[in-house]
């Protein structure tokens, strides 16, 4: 299933959280060679994990970590505003309708199916919360992966091989991902409601233009 958890909810899912932070170390430090901070337990975390973001986490058949990403609203502190402001001319997008997504992570054994479920989770969450777009920072190797998943961002700015991108969270993307990920729309919605209750925007049934 897909879980939607605030940072403060992670202690109720300790194994899942530990696997996510270890898989992040494997991806960002080991495979991509980023200068990230990994602690003695092998967890990769940064300041933004301390800001109670929402994690979208895809579980594998055994309930383990398959894929994850994290969201913060652009009305508050974000990585794009604090760490990479130069990618958008020093003044990144701020809007209640746009959330920042960071730490797009696939566990070493995860395939395209897990990635598609993760993207479905991102769109499901955004549409239910009235969020129309997502912004994030990515580097060149990810471009190919996003393209293969049918989830290419519009590039807003690039410097030193790092880009800021804009993703559209639309009903069309939602339906496409339901179909390619093999998840029924009703099931996807039920996973979200398990975390946030039923009082949400009517989207994806009615999405603002």
């Amino acid at each position, binding site marked *: 299933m897909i879980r939607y958890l*605030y940072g*403060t909810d992670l202690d109720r899912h300790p194994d899942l959280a530990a696997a996510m932070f270890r898989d992040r170390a494997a991806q960002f430090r080991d495979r991509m060679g980023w200068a990230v901070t990994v602690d003695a337990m092998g967890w990769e975390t940064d300041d933004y994990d301390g800001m*109670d973001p*929402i994690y979208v986490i895809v579980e594998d058949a055994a309930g383990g970590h398959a894929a994850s990403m994290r969201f*913060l*609203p652009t*009305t*508050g*502190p974000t990585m794009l*505003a604090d760490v990479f402001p130069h990618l*958008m*001319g*020093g*003044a*990144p*997008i*701020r*809007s*209640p*309708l*746009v959330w920042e997504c960071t730490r797009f992570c696939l566990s070493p054994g995860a395939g395209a199916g897990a990635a598609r479920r993760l993207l479905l989770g991102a769109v499901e969450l955004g549409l239910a*919360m*009235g969020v*129309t*777009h997502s912004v994030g920072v990515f580097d060149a190797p990810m471009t190919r992966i996003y393209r293969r998943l049918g989830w290419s961002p*519009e590039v*807003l700015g690039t410097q030193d091989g790092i880009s800021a991108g*804009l993703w*559209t969270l639309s009903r069309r993307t939602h339906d496409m991902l339901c179909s390619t990920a093999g998840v029924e729309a009703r099931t996807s919605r039920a996973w979200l409601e398990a975390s*946030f*209750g*039923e*009082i*949400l*925007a*009517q989207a994806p049934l009615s999405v*603002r233009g």
Partner: protein
Amino acid sequence: MSRKLDDALERLASAASFDALEGAVTSLRDTFEVEHVVYHAVRSTGERWGAVTYDPGWVQTYIDENFQAIDPVVLNCFRRFTPADWKTLDWSPRAARTLLAEGIAHGIGNQGLSLPIRGPNGQFAVFTLNDRARDDEWAAFAREAFDDLLLVAHYVNERALALDGTQNAPHQMLSPRETDALTLLAAGRSRAQAAEHLRISENTLRVYIESARFKLGALNTVHAVANAMSRGLICV
């Protein structure tokens, strides 16, 4: 509702003092047709400010009893940024049930929908609609009001931030692309022409315009263009 919403936003936009903003927030009760509206903000300095339509006697009791330490709405919302229906919160502790019972005795409705907001530099706020209603009526209302709640709550918070005297604060700065987009619209270009000129999609142009509108505290695109011109941020 949209005409009433426009009027309410105009009132919020013209509020030039905290007193006027408080009045404008209070009148949102009629806009949403609910019993109560609450806006409660914690500034980056830790100072609190709010506008509330609850009975003053209840507000005093709430403060005297330090109810915020056990209020499930406060405990849940001040960390988050997604809307919460009060029903989904944890009211099982006895102190929480006492709070709810006393509140209802003071005229608070049994239903609530609270939207927490994260502002710049650790500022945060919660905007709440409260009413007396059956569960099914409330669920229908909440779905219907969701988009307007999102817009209004953030608008109120941006007005409060602006009144805090932080003109031209970093979070209000327009990016070069946002400035370009408003400049082209001010020069009479259509969205399609502006997007083509900037070599971006209309979709992305819309995001830049919406972000600029939000940063400028403007009601709509026309207002945003006028506002940017009067501040000297764009010239045509």
